[in-house]
């Protein structure tokens, strides 16, 4: 085919400007611009403590967003990640403070809780053919309810569970391994966990069978099925993976707050979805990167932090973040249309 060569080179040229790389570059540039802007308008913004604060604030949302990235690449959605995170925090707290399990086992209980919730999501979606929006909306409410039921059943009232007997638990996120090696950089472990989790997620997405089928299902589910892939099973695995990341976020937030707060969690799923979308993952599936999601999560927490420093009321912070989400997706649509 003489023509095909010409077509591919032309396509390659075209895609330099419209590829995922360009989208990531765009998101990254946006992050730099936001950073530069706040650095200029506020002398407090670019201090070490504040930057640490931004990094720390990104940890929970970032980890949630990693899981959501996989789900959205399959053209699905997961609304339950926020409350599943809370439920995982509760089970971790119960395991450590009520059952008296050692901390590592308590963490495993939290991770398992998240994965189980995600697995159930996957079964409902892939086997019962219930749309992801509805299935995970239901799971969001179930997890929220369970997070309230647990303390009520144990203590007779809905109240937070504190890790007063396990002071080491808080060090899991608030300690600094990096700081003990490089004394000048007391980067909290929570941030380290986020980056390690992101590396693992990126590896899964780009190098493993699971990642390949995640993209394939989102790109053309029917074609994937006709290629002999067990789509239902792999979808279930994807949601379970999303749940696992929620479980991890639950452990992180419990450790950071040194307590499990049963009422927390609703609304976190929207921040996570926003981070994923800002990072260039397409809600129609097939496209998305972990690096993009990470940048998206940083954009959100940097904005929130900077606006707070400028004294912008919280209500207005939300309004601005909302605009950013819409603009990011609109840019993505423009890019696609141009293709």
């Amino acid at each position: 085919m003489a023509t095909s060569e010409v077509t591919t080179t032309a396509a390659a040229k075209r895609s330099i400007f419209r590829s995922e790389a360009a989208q990531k570059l765009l998101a990254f540039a946006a992050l730099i611009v936001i950073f530069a802007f706040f650095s200029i308008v506020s002398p407090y913004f670019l201090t070490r403590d504040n930057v640490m604060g931004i990094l720390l604030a990104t940890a929970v949302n970032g980890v949630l967003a990693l899981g959501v990235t996989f789900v959205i690449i399959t053209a699905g959605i997961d609304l339950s990640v926020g409350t599943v995170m809370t439920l995982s925090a509760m089970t971790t707290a119960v395991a450590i403070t009520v059952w008296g399990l050692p901390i590592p086992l308590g963490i495993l209980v939290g991770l398992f809780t998240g994965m189980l919730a995600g697995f159930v999501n996957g079964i409902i979606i892939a086997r019962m053919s219930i749309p992801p929006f509805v299935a995970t909306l239901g799971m969001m409410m179930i997890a929220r309810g369970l997070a309230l039921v647990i303390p009520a059943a144990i203590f007779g009232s809905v109240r937070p569970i504190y890790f007063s007997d396990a002071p080491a638990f808080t060090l899991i996120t608030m300690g600094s391994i990096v700081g003990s090696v490089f004394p000048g950089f007391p980067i909290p472990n929570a941030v380290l966990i986020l980056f390690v989790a992101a590396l693992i997620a990126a590896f899964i997405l780009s190098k493993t069978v699971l990642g390949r089928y995640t993209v394939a299902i989102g790109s053309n589910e029917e074609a994937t099925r006709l290629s002999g892939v067990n789509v239902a099973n792999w979808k279930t695995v994807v949601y379970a993976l999303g749940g696992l990341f929620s479980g991890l976020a639950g452990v992180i937030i419990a450790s950071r707050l040194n307590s499990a707060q049963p009422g927390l969690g609703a609304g976190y799923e929207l921040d996570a979805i926003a981070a994923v979308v800002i990072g260039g993952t397409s809600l129609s599936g097939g496209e998305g990167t972990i690096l993009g999601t990470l940048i998206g999560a940083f954009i959100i927490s940097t904005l929130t932090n900077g606006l707070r420093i400028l004294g912008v009321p919280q209500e207005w912070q939300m309004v601005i973040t909302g605009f950013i989400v819409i603009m990011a997706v609109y840019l993505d649509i423009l890019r696609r249309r141009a293709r």
Partner: protein
Amino acid sequence: MDNVLLLMEGIDKTFPGVRALDQAQFELRAGEVHALVGENGAGKSTLMKVLAGVYAKDAGRILYQGKEVEIPNPRAAQTLGISMIHQELNLMPHLTLAQNVFVGREPRQGLRFVLDEKQINAQTQALFDSMHLKLDPRTRVADLTVATQQMVEIAKALSFDSQILIMDEPTAALTEAEIEELFRTIRQLRDRGVGIVYISHRLEELKQIADRITVMRDGRYVGTEDAQAISIDRIISMMVGRTIFESAPEVPEHPDEEIVLEVKNLNRGSAVKDVSFKLRRGEILGFAGLMGAGRTEVARVVFGADALDSGEIYVHGKKVDIRHPRHAVRHGIGYLSEDRKRYGLALGMDVEANIVLASFHKFLGLLGVVNNGKTHATGKHYVEALTIKTPSLQQKVKNLSGGNQQKVVIGKWLTADTDVLIFDEPTRGIDVGAKSEIYHLLNELAQQGKSIIMISSELPEILRMSHRIIVMCEGRITGELTAAEATQERIMTYATQRRLLVAANGASQNDSAAQEV
């Protein structure tokens, strides 16, 4: 011949309301190209999808290399060495060529769950080299032309070490040069002993590529012939040789001379090329052609659902600018989609609401309040006039039969005062009894002075209903017949008149343009 690779016999397959396959049979030898032909809906694709494990058969048996086999899913078919290239391409646009070729059976590294991308690329490269394809395995599918994607599908099928390769309309989207390339590949495969099933509407292609031809009609086996010995006319008569209408055809009233709609030199991409026609008052103008001939595309452009590249539309002699369906409705043009459920009806709403939907403004009183008395009266009128069988006006449309749903759509457009009605496959999915009611209705409408364009892939329907027939092939009009001249054979001849033949008739300047699209 003793090298029979595959034998399918007594295959039945029923879909809700349709008997798609009725004792169908098919035989394939190793090292032959066996063409499978038939009209739209004859069951060719269905039969082959049974073989490829996409559909489960209701009855019958499949003998593969002499042994009876069950093929419950695509994976099973691939394992046996049966691959199918579907009509709608089945690639993942976001993945690379190599990733597409190996999806579902990727080479792995040490740990079972890690992909060996190097192997995937290298093996794909080797595969492409063996097919003389100059393609980079790392290119994303989305960046390729349809023709190239087609070749990738073939490469993918071959990588399964396929003994049987099924191709469903492989040339539908290809240019002449690309078809030549495809044929070269097919012949190579045949010489290697692969059995190739070639489904196509393009009869003149078959002489070039096929060894044998099997004809299907209405889900049944008609016959198998030597491709070189049989004439195209004979194939056509085998394809259409049926008499479905026992009743005498309606006598077409002669339409008025007044021209209601005129289309001049309409163009849109490669789907609509230089289409011109006139529609008279009270006329039923049939649009015949094979699937993908561009008939629906013409209708959509005239209705303003798609933008035109160039061309002019005149309504009652006045040039009009139709850029949106609401402009078309304003000029009295209504379009009844072949996909009623998706484009024609609000399924969850009741009969009355659907009938008044396209002309809601007429039923609004002061402050935009809907005048329920008026909508009720109108709904009642059309339910009676069109004999829509519904327990009440408040019945949800989704609970009606196909025929009655179609009548509701007709009622909707009549309420909107349209006098040009474009029917796209008006009887698709409608049972035989209800069909004749729809035919009566169309005739009545024409006699009342409505002008009708009827797009249909069913030749008997076109022949029975039309005053005049326009035949399209590959986006252009290849023939026009009066009711008196028209026969199934003549229509099929025009409908399969491809670019080459048209070019010989002096339309070559358009041809070179088409190649570039």
